[in-house]
């Protein structure tokens, strides 16, 4: 079985500050990891994905994530956030058939 845990339901941060959104997963098989973003009143957009190879993956809008197999984590980071990064962020773990999402983290960026 696969599962994803996003411990932080909401992360408030000031503009230009760094941010880390945490994601931990569990799976009995090899997995592929994803981060999606959902802006207000919009659909889901892929930020980045880890399939294999380098454990540090870079995505759109200056985001990056690091795959840590020993800690079963795939945390999302951005060194300096903008107001426009305010959105909900979802971590997901995929296998051959299933794609399971976490409960999401709402990032609130204030001036």
């Amino acid at each position, binding site marked *: 079985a696969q599962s994803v845990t996003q411990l932080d339901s909401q992360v408030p941060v000031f503009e230009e500050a760094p941010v880390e959104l945490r994601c931990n997963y569990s799976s009995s098989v090899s997995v592929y990891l994803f981060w999606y973003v959902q802006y207000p009143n919009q659909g*889901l957009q892929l930020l980045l*994905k880890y399939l294999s190879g380098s454990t540090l993956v870079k995505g759109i809008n200056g985001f990056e994530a690091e795959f840590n197999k020993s800690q079963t984590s795939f945390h999302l980071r951005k060194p300096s956030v903008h107001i426009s990064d305010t959105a909900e962020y979802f971590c997901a773990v*995929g296998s*051959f058939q*299933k794609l399971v999402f976490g409960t*999401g983290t709402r990032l609130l960026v204030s001036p």
Partner: protein
Amino acid sequence: SQTIHQWPATLVQPVGSPLSLECTVEGTSNPNLYWYRQAAGRGLQLLFYSVGIGQISSEVPQNLSASRPQDRQFILSSKKLLLSDSGFYLCAWRPDRVAEAFFGQGTRLTVV
């Protein structure tokens, strides 16, 4: 290019009425198809997935069912809606096991 269509965008249905939400994918063959429900504080809950025609896997026991009558068509149904079925339903597809999912625009269902 591939596209996914999901309709209707919004739906208001009385308790006890039937439901049918349709999702179709164009420009690909044999995709993996998914139905999710998004509710506040619960993220995207995987309801059903399908890896082929007639093959449906259910993740959460509930008042809903899914069917895949054609390769690129995925239908979410209910015989009698409950108030608790209200939510935002999203259809998605993946071209293969390593790929990310591509989402439809979703259906906002309100059961009254």
